[in-house]
């Protein structure tokens, strides 16, 4: 179905209001839009890793989830949902389940890039018919902004503080989308939804309705961790894409497609300067950090262009 904002807006919310996520948080926006891509008649089994999303949407005895939902631990969402999907396959064969059920797992970058990486990799390799969505806010936000392997280089976090000798996180960000593409699964995509809701919706729909495993890596800014002015969320998300810090692309059966190429690729500092976690990069004498980050963004973008046959 071609994307129609009015039609999509009319669909019922499957993550209801009343949850406790922060104002200006990207994660619930991402979740709601992804769940809208489900066909209304399809049942969904949704799983979440421990994290902000889980502890804010299902506080006993209240749940914000209108579909079935399971949380078991931090590092095992990929495995938990794959067990549910396996049970579904049997029940379907035995005629114990009418209609279709879809399996969607959510994890933050800590639960996905780091502690849940093994369970995710295993689930993808085994070929379960499921979607794993990483809402990537680039640190362990639920526990108070600790660095993860998704944290960009030089970011100031509570376990990679910008100190007098060490200027923030010293390692570059892991490229999980690429790693998932190298699992040779049918569908992998990366998106930054705020300002690109159509892109997220279409990718979610493809991910959910492509048979087999699919992975979505979704940039989900965190006002607490990134330290931006909450109303700047749209601008920030736009800058992530316009600077090619976070390109919008998909890998369908191994074929790379870049969904958006900025007419003028903006310098990465336009994305960084909106965030308090990179404030120290703009002090006199620290220009080398900006230069280094720019080089890395350029190099990753060039690689992506090559993979997509556009270089």
């Amino acid at each position: 179905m071609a994307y129609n904002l009015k039609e999509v807006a009319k669909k019922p919310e499957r993550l209801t209001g009343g949850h406790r996520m922060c104002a200006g948080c990207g994660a619930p926006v991402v979740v709601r839009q992804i769940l809208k891509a489900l066909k209304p008649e399809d049942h969904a089994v949704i799983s979440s890793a421990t994290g902000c999303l889980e502890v804010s949407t299902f506080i006993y005895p209240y749940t914000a989830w209108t579909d079935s939902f399971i949380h078991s631990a931090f590092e095992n969402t990929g495995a938990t949902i794959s067990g549910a999907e396996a049970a579904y396959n049997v029940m379907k064969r035995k005629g114990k389940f009418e209609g279709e059920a879809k399996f969607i797992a959510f994890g933050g970058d800590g639960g996905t890039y780091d502690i849940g990486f093994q369970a995710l990799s295993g689930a993808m390799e085994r070929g379960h018919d499921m979607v794993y969505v990483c809402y990537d806010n680039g640190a362990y936000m639920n526990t108070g902004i600790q660095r993860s392997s998704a944290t960009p280089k030089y970011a100031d976090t509570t376990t990679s503080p910008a100190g007098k000798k060490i200027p923030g996180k010293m390692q570059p960000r892991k490229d999980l989308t690429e790693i998932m593409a190298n699992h040779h699964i049918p569908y992998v995509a990366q998106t930054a939804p705020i300002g690109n809701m159509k892109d997220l919706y279409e990718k979610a729909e493809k991910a959910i309705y492509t048979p087999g495993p699919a992975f979505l890596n979704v940039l989900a800014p965190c006002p607490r961790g990134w330290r931006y002015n909450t109303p700047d969320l749209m601008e920030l998300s736009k800058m992530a894409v316009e600077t090619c810090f976070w390109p919008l692309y998909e890998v369908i059966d191994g074929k790379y497609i870049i969904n958006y190429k900025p007419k003028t690729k903006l310098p990465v500092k336009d994305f960084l300067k909106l965030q308090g976690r990179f404030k120290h990069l703009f002090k006199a004498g620290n220009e080398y950090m900006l230069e280094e980050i720019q080089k890395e963004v350029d190099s990753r973008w060039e690689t992506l262009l090559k993979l997509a046959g556009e270089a």
Partner: protein
Amino acid sequence: MAIRERLSGNEATAIAMKQINPDVVAAFPITPSTEVPQYFSTYVADGVVDTEFVAVESEHSAMSACIGAQAAGGRAMTATSANGLAFMWEALYIAASSRLPIVLSAVNRALSGPINIHNDHSDTMGARDSGWIQIYSENNQEAYDNMLMAHRIGEHPDVMLPVMICQDGFITSHAIENIELVEDDKVKAFVGEYKPAHSLLNRENPISVGPLDLQLHYFEHKRQQAQAMANAKKVILEVSEEFYKLTGRKYGLFEEYKTDDADVVIVVLNSTAGTVKYVIDQYRAEGKKVGLIKPRVFRPFPVDELADALSKFKAVAVLDKADSFNAAGGPLFTEITSALFSKGVFGPKVINYIFGLGGRDVKSNDIEIVYDKLLEIANTGKVDSVYNYLGVRE
């Protein structure tokens, strides 16, 4: 007509699983339990079961997939040993507190380190407070029979707890013994169909599982979980009685061997009970009044029944195939003595031996050392050492 066979403990377990025909088996290879998923995957490959076999990338994921499968409304099973069980540790607690009656075949093996593939009970003893029902098996027949009873116990509405069926790695898992199998159709009828009241795949009534559960409700949920474990005792006895009617094989909370007129007894789990029975027969021929109590059900711990049964003896030796490293006694010993004390049983002198760690062979003369010590205590009324090691060089 029951089927006479010759099988290893692992084969017997796999055959029980085939007859149970669960919805999902999620497992990861680890010696000595590897054969269980290995045999089972051939049933899947040959289409003789309806099960989805999920060949997970770790034991943590095995238990996590079982949690997902069971919450979805399926019957989920797995098998593991030692470090595999330890790796599941976090998820074991989640399975129990989510009240998911998953069934696990635990093939007991020494926990690292140092790494050792042979039998002791340090793995399942480490999981004793995880909220799982634990049933121990002396031999292949018991491993098979206990497995057939596991779902009926765990899935009972008054229980709703996961169950682990334990047997000794290599000693029974790999040794071939004569065994009597129950016919497939009888197993099917006995185990019955799993119809959970709530599940993720009940689209008419979607549920959320695994909440953030804070000060207001967590404690009540834990209290309910504790009650479920207390309820399990009665259910285990009921299911065992029904199983007795089906097979003629009788099981209780523990087995007593030649205790009627015994002065002294050994308390021991799993296969060592077989060696102890052999020594008892030898000693009995010499007129020595020795006996055995072999706990079958360790969780729930049969406090009243064990305290009552042990109250009549002069001396008791509890043999632990796991150490607690508490400088005071092994896990079975501390639970037995706690049961005696709390029930006001102060008659028997009770001593403890840690034995057989890392698969150290336990021979009949080791058991003779224990009985000789017990008979001496019974005669003199004096205990020189409570916490002891058996069969170790020191």
